[in-house]
């Protein structure tokens, strides 16, 4: 057990996990997931929000089993390695709002950091500006961290408190099983499905769930985090997490080459638009929100799986953020930014600066 623990904490461990995610993300596309979206935590949570009717964007409604797998896989790893630590209480309302803002920014770009890498690995040049925006957002976040930004300490809580998000995920899985898709129908019982569009593209349920569980397990062990990768480089000149992030990119690129999924260009890329400035600015918002919350969307799911109630609140914020994005015309589409997407980016940035400047505390 201790040897495994050491392996996952090592440089080779994080690289292996990044490569695993990259390989299986590309394979999930081959097996049915949308283009350059083998795994996208933001898009998949957005699809989940659509499946349970939080928004009614017809093209993006599917109860993605990968998200469920991420939380439950991380929880399994936490239990096996005795790391399940129920904790909560570090500024939950702020974390909820940060989750909302992160989702709003990510849906202007059309992807979380994982998908930004996968888009680049698939040849989508628009992802370059998205990734630069992510770096910019994280860099602004590190200035706040150096300036004593801090949401305060959490406290240990009841074991059952740590179970709540995993139980919600089990509930979603039950809904997915009880109400399977009915061909050409957008509603099965109480669960919405997409008849066309990205929401209608998905790998078989057992495959999606199995990959989700495996990724959740491995990412919990290795602490894989794309925001942390950039943050640690900027703040501490540390390459540890970054090497995992780069491994994801390289592995996905190689598998895409082998599978014929690498198609370089800017126009006509799957689920992407070419408005460079807003690809950049959307990810500045998302990157800053992740940094102020202490983790990228994937990492928040894994933390929630190991009992972190504050991370769970961030996840719920992202689900509501997806609803807000689609209900109010903030989310982009392949045609470009939504009618209020630009307003949303500017207001979100203002909200994040307000949080960053006003929530400072000396801890030592």
């Amino acid at each position, binding site marked *: 057990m201790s040897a495994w623990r050491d392996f996952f*904490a090592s440089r080779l461990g994080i690289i292996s996990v990044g490569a695993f995610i990259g390989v299986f993300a590309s394979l999930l596309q081959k097996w049915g997931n949308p283009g350059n979206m083998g795994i996208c935590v933001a898009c998949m949570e957005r699809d989940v929000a659509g499946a349970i009717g939080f928004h009614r964007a017809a093209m993006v409604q599917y109860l993605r089993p990968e998200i469920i797998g991420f939380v439950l896989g991380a929880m399994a790893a936490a239990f096996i*390695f005795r*790391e399940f*630590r129920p*904790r909560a209480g*570090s500024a939950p309302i702020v974390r909820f709002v940060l989750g909302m803002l992160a989702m709003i920014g990510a849906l202007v770009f059309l992807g979380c950091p994982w998908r930004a890498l996968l888009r680049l690995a698939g040849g989508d040049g628009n992802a370059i500006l998205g990734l630069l925006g992510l770096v910019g957002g994280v860099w602004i976040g590190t200035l706040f*961290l*150096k300036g004593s930004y*801090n*949401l305060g*300490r*959490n*406290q*240990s809580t009841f074991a059952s408190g740590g179970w709540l998000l995993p139980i919600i995920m089990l509930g979603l899985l039950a809904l997915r099983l009880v109400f399977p898709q009915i061909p050409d129908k957008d509603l099965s019982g109480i669960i919405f499905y997409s008849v066309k569009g990205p929401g209608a593209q998905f790998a078989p349920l057992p495959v999606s769930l199995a990959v989700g569980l495996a990724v959740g397990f491995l990412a919990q062990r290795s*602490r894989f*985090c794309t925001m*942390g990768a950039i*943050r*640690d480089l900027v*703040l*501490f*000149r*540390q390459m*540890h997490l970054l090497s995992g992030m780069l491994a994801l990119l390289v592995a996905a690129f190689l598998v895409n080459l082998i599978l014929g999924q690498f198609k370089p260009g800017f126009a006509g890329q799957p689920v992407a638009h070419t408005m460079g400035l807003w690809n950049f600015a959307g990810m500045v918002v998302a990157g800053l929100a992740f940094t102020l919350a*202490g*983790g990228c969307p994937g990492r928040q799911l894994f933390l929630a799986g190991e009992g972190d109630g*504050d991370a769970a609140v961030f996840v719920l914020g992202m689900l509501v953020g997806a609803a807000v994005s689609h209900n109010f015309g903030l989310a982009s589409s392949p045609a470009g930014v939504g009618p209020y997407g630009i307003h949303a980016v500017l207001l979100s940035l203002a909200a994040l600066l307000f949080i960053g400047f006003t929530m400072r505390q000396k*801890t*030592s």
Partner: protein
Amino acid sequence: MSDIIDARGLSCPQPVLITLEKLKTLNQGQVVVLVDTDTSRENVLRAAATLGWQAGDIQVEGSEYRLTLKKE
């Protein structure tokens, strides 16, 4: 008497930030860091090592760790 840094309950990257801040002011000696997650334990030890601080004694107290860092 060692300096004690209480990083319990703090989320990433606060434990590393406050530990490094302290280590840079001391430059040598012994520091004790209290953390309550395995992630913080790994991150603090990894960051301390980059400044040449070695992990001495690591005590487990319930769900918490008491990390002793040393530099000659």
